């Protein structure tokens, strides 16, 4: 962490990048070790996460030109879950080394999507609904950041309370 121009970290030991953070010594091992199991765990998790997202889009389909509520809710839910998951993972002393790649990188990464978010905005603008596009753009960013912050803070507080 030192030498990267960072200020003091109030919550040390949590990686910046939940996919793989090469600044974290334990995760740097993934570069050296045979990583076929990690890639397989990410792949399996990604399939499960994407299937859940596809299921949500079938349950609550979005009509063309209307506000993409399903994608917004999928993304915000995934952001809340990763905030919770990464904090719990840091507190676990003996988490299996494939747990983060499987659930954080795979399931949650496959469940949430940035490409659908971007192309939905592009389509709304080109189909003549720039106001809906702008509200969708802002609500997703605000919802995602609020969800990850709230979930991580509440989880840290709950874990600290349990340890007292």
């Amino acid at each position, binding site marked *: 962490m030192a030498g*990267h*121009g*960072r*200020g003091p*970290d*109030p*919550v040390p030991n949590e*990686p*910046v*990048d*939940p*996919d*793989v953070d*090469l600044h974290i010594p334990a995760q740097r091992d*993934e570069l050296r070790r045979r990583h076929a199991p*990690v*890639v397989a765990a*990410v*792949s*399996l998790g*990604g*399939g499960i*996460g*994407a*299937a859940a*997202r*596809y299921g949500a889009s079938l349950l609550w389909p979005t009509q063309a030109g209307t506000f993409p509520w399903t994608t917004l809710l999928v*993304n915000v839910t*995934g*952001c809340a*879950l*990763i*905030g919770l998951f*990464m904090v719990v993972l840091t507190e676990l002393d003996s988490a299996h080394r494939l747990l983060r*790649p499987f659930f954080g*990188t*795979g399931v*949650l*990464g*496959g469940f*949430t*999507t*940035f*490409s*659908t*978010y*971007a*192309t939905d*905005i*592009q*389509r709304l603008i*080109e189909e003549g609904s720039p106001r809906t596009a702008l509200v969708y*753009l802002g609500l997703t*960013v605000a919802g*995602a*950041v609020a*969800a*990850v*912050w709230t979930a*991580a803070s509440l989880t840290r507080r709950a874990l600290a309370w349990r340890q007292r």
Partner: protein
Amino acid sequence: MNWLLVIAGAMVGAPLRYLTDRAVQSRHDTVFPWGTFTVNVAGSLLLGLITGAATAGAASTHTQLLLGTGLCGALTTYSTFSYETLRLAENGDRFFAAANVAAGVAAGLGAAFTGAALAHAIWA
């Protein structure tokens, strides 16, 4: 069949994101999460292209499910994007946190528009 296409695409897209993230990170030692930025921009470009092709009648529903919903959906991520933003802000890199959101959204949108324009130029 539709489910299998989505799952097959995602089982390639998610590890592709992981491997890209690793490759990008090992080349740049910065706090800025360039790995996630790269996959989100690349995936938005590709999905813009696929969606544009579908509008022009050049991509089947099956192609859309395999490459769009599956591959691009899992290649890109919002959870990692937002968690990285949170960690940058918590580490005191408020500027990088704000820049990550602004640059990520701007570049992703630019990529989606570019992909759609390319599809229009090719198939329309």
